């Protein structure tokens, strides 16, 4: 073998040796698991007997059953439509504000980021207490003269918005951090040029900052979409899908069908999981097209 080939070979060998732990984990826990879940979605499987092949029955069933079409799917879509824009816009505004030279800037940045590093279970428990009928939220509403006896988490109209509020509050920090980093990258000359041209603060924000933040916005919205489509933690801790399925999301439906049924329906759960994966994939593709079309 020539010197060059030997060097290349040894480089490849080194690379694969270093990659092998991750490749092994990835292969077993992701690739194999996804393939097996795909296979299981065409079977009826209760974990204790071998899977029985049923073809497309699970997919047909899930589109016919009320729990998916009438509850899980609309709830998840409502959740995504509510949380993603809100968390993006609020975190963008907060990041812009904290990029200015104001007093206690460091403190505010930490302060806004703390919810993101707190366990979502702990946050859910605290918010359950805050939003109870005799909790702090109702107390404040009462002081402001607004109706103050709403049972937030046991009301079919308010349970999902409450969970949305919890999630927006806890994810603003992470998004804010991403936007802050992107804002640092905008050269000050652009701002100076705009100000010389007589642009107002708001016009600068709209026509200089936002276009230059496009990659960051794309990232934040994509991560937001992927995360929101899979919302599970808060549902598991706060409402278990209730009341009357008003907070049932697709990810929680997967868990419920597989683990919370006396006779596990793993095949059905796998089918639901795959439909969710396809939905996330499609929405990410659409979002990418929109961003690319604008450029």
């Amino acid at each position: 073998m020539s010197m060059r080939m030997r060097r290349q070979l040894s480089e490849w060998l080194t690379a694969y040796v270093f990659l092998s732990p991750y490749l092994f984990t990835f292969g077993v826990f992701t690739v194999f698991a996804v393939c097996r879940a795909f296979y299981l979605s065409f079977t009826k499987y209760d974990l204790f007997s071998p899977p029985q092949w049923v073809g497309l029955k699970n997919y047909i069933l899930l589109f016919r059953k009320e729990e998916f079409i009438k509850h899980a799917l609309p709830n998840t879509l409502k959740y995504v439509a509510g949380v993603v824009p809100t968390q993006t816009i609020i975190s963008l505004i907060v990041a812009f504000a904290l990029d200015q030279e104001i007093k206690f800037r460091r403190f505010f940045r930490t302060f806004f980021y703390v919810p993101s590093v707190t366990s979502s279970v702990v946050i859910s428990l605290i918010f359950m207490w805050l939003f109870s009928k005799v909790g702090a939220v109702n107390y404040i509403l009462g002081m402001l003269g607004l109706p103050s006896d709403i049972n937030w988490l046991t009301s079919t109209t308010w349970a999902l918005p409450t969970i949305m509020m919890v999630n927006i509050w806890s994810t603003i920090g992470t998004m804010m951090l991403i936007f802050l980093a992107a804002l640092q990258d905008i050269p000050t000359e652009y701002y100076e040029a705009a100000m010389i041209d007589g642009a107002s603060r708001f016009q600068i924000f709209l026509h200089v900052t936002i276009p230059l933040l496009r990659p960051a916005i794309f990232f934040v919205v994509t991560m937001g979409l992927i995360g929101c489509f899979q919302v599970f933690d808060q549902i598991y801790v706060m409402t278990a899908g209730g009341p009357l399925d008003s907070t049932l999301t697709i990810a929680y439906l997967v868990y419920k069908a597989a683990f919370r049924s006396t006779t596990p329906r793993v095949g059905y759960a796998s089918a639901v999981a795959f439909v969710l994966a396809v939905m996330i994939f499609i929405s990410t593709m659409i979002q990418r097209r929109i961003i690319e079309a604008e450029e």
Partner: protein
Amino acid sequence: MRSKLLAVVALLALVAMAVACAPPTPEKVVETVVVTKEVPVEVTKIVEVTKEVVKEVEKPRVEVRLSGWTASPEEENLLRASLYEFSLQHPDIVVKYEPITEAYWDKMLTMVSAGTEPDIYYMDIFQFPFYASKGVMLPLDDLMAKTGTKREDFIDTLIDAFTWEGKTYGIPKDFNTLALFYNKKMFADAGLAEPTDDWTWDDLKAAAKALSKPEENIYGFGVPPDPGRFPIFVFQNGGHIMTEDFSDTLLDSPEVIEAAEFYTSFRKEGIGAIPADVGVGWQGEAFGKGDFAMVLEGGWLIPYLTKQFPDTEFGAVMPPAGPKGEGNLIFTVAYVISKNCKNPEAAWEVINYLTGIENQTTVLRTGFALPSRKALLDDPYFDEHPVSATIFRGAEIGTPFMWGLHGSDVNEQMAKALERVYLEGVSCEEAFKEAAKNLREIFKE
């Protein structure tokens, strides 16, 4: 040269990891001693006699894995103490206690599916039909015969619940039923006579009316949309939730609808409430706080109240009888042996000890759980603890909390039906007819 060295180091690291992850091999030591003796014989022949002496071979120690959930650190310590006592009596059986602290059923499902489940584990009556129908547990009748343990030693409703196709699959370790807990002070302040075991639905309604003060957020009776409470009203009205073979539901039968109308009437008339109405998570907390004067709860309420609300004086009676008599729910857990257990006799010894009269008496005296043996019906503990005695007697008239292979769906539809009545003002008939319809669709899948 450098990259080669790095590659070798990385490979070694991988190998080291693989070796470290290998399971340890157990050691077994058996001793035999051989003695040879030469015996001189007055004949031309010299005969060598070998005498083999086998010295005290230690019975091979057998390992048995036991698992279950942990209700509290105190209960776990109690079980460990029992297992220690057991190890003194059976030095050849080593019990490895591996409690599962959370998501017990999720873990059990995956372990049994993979064949790695423990030898002995807890089985709740609610999950029992699924596990039994799949044949993942060992029938215990032969093992019971070997130690002379009889089914008749245990309370009938409990041991029958863990029987499948004529075979015993679990030995009930303890149980709980519902009792009507009442706040003594609230009754005294209202000048009402305390409830008795002879109470009926009418007495309950009247007392709830007299004790309610909705302006102060105080209600006479807790009526959560809970499938672990509502069914006793169905039983008291002479009805059932499912048919006897669990193939169909009876949620749309008139007995159920009448029971539902009675149950939901409390909140409708402002003399009962659900826990969320007073801002708490469950009615036990509302009872402790004095927001609910009466609640239907089980024995778990006793340690909760003594710990969290020691100033609340309470008493308990059997749930009030309905138009067709008394009714109650039995929540029970049994020890079962896995079908893959390699040492069933040893596993049975453990269960036999833990459910034996000696251990059950110890457990009873701690007040953590009610025993499943008939012999303990007259234990002096019950004279000093009348509330526990009431809950214990509930087993005589109770129905096991189990709805067959689709129990979770039945629970869900029952809860949703009650929620629909409470939150959307739907009539009981409509709500329960819909619940029955949904269940029949699920059964057909």
